[in-house]
């Protein structure tokens, strides 16, 4: 059975991919992120737009081939995400 993922977990997966699992130095393409995060194109587009506007991701690449890299605030957010995921897990909950 497929595991249910919260919105927060999907964001965590996307940020973790852009931090740990990049295709090349320019960043990860949308197609690559769709495959890694296992999420639809329409949904990931909204999330990526939000993450870029929040400063957690940086958009790189030229027009037509957008790529995404994690920013410094994104790294800090991901660190906090892991810390508080463990914190919530201690209470038998997921964030």
């Amino acid at each position, binding site marked *: 059975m497929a595991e249910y993922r919260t919105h927060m977990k999907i964001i965590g997966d996307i940020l973790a991919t852009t931090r740990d699992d990049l295709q090349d130095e320019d960043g990860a393409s949308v197609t690559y992120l769709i495959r890694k995060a296992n999420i639809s194109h329409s949904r990931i587009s909204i999330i990526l737009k*939000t993450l870029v506007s929040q400063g957690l991701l940086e958009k790189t690449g030229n027009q037509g081939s957008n790529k995404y890299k994690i920013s410094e605030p994104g790294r800090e957010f991901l660190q*906090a995400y892991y*810390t*508080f995921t*463990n*914190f919530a897990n*201690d209470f*038998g*909950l997921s964030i």
Partner: protein
Amino acid sequence: MEFLLENILNLIGFLVGLVIGIMSYIGFRNTGSPTLFRLTIAFSSISLGFFVIWTGYMVEDFVTKTGSVERWIQTLGIAIQTVGYFFIAFSHSIKSFFPKSSYFRSVGIIPLFLVSSVQLEHIFRSVSFILLAYGAIETMLSYFDNKNKGAISVSVGLGLLALGEFVGWYSFVFPESILYSASMIIKIGGLIALFIPVSKVPLTKIKFNGDLE
């Protein structure tokens, strides 16, 4: 002896609740997670509930000196704690705690106005026991899913608090027995067990960020 234990219990409850509440709030501010927001409300309420009772004992000890704490203060503190226990249980997906019918919702509160504060205290203790037992079982079940050892400690903590509530409630049957003191010692053990995994959370390099929608 009971007075001293009561003071220790309420002070520890206030501090443990406050620390976990603050950590949940920091987590909420950093991640925007609704789960952490519910935990913030839960542990803030628990902390406030213990603080109200502790304040009642302090006022009695240093100001009024009547020999016993005002019953309504005790009831108020327990009621506020019950709200906190509700939010812990609610985080474990209690979706139908209240009746769906608006009629039952409106009349359901009436019995609370027909009973004395002593009876209210019994009701709140009973509800707290159910909520805490539910939270303990759900937390233990989550351990079997993710094998997170901290969940055992939290589950034991909630379980001991539930047991403490039950023994405390049962002590009304045998008022002069050791049961009430035992209930407070059990609850102190529960609060310590709750705090153990939380004390291991590394908070270095975590700062407040804007909420993520």
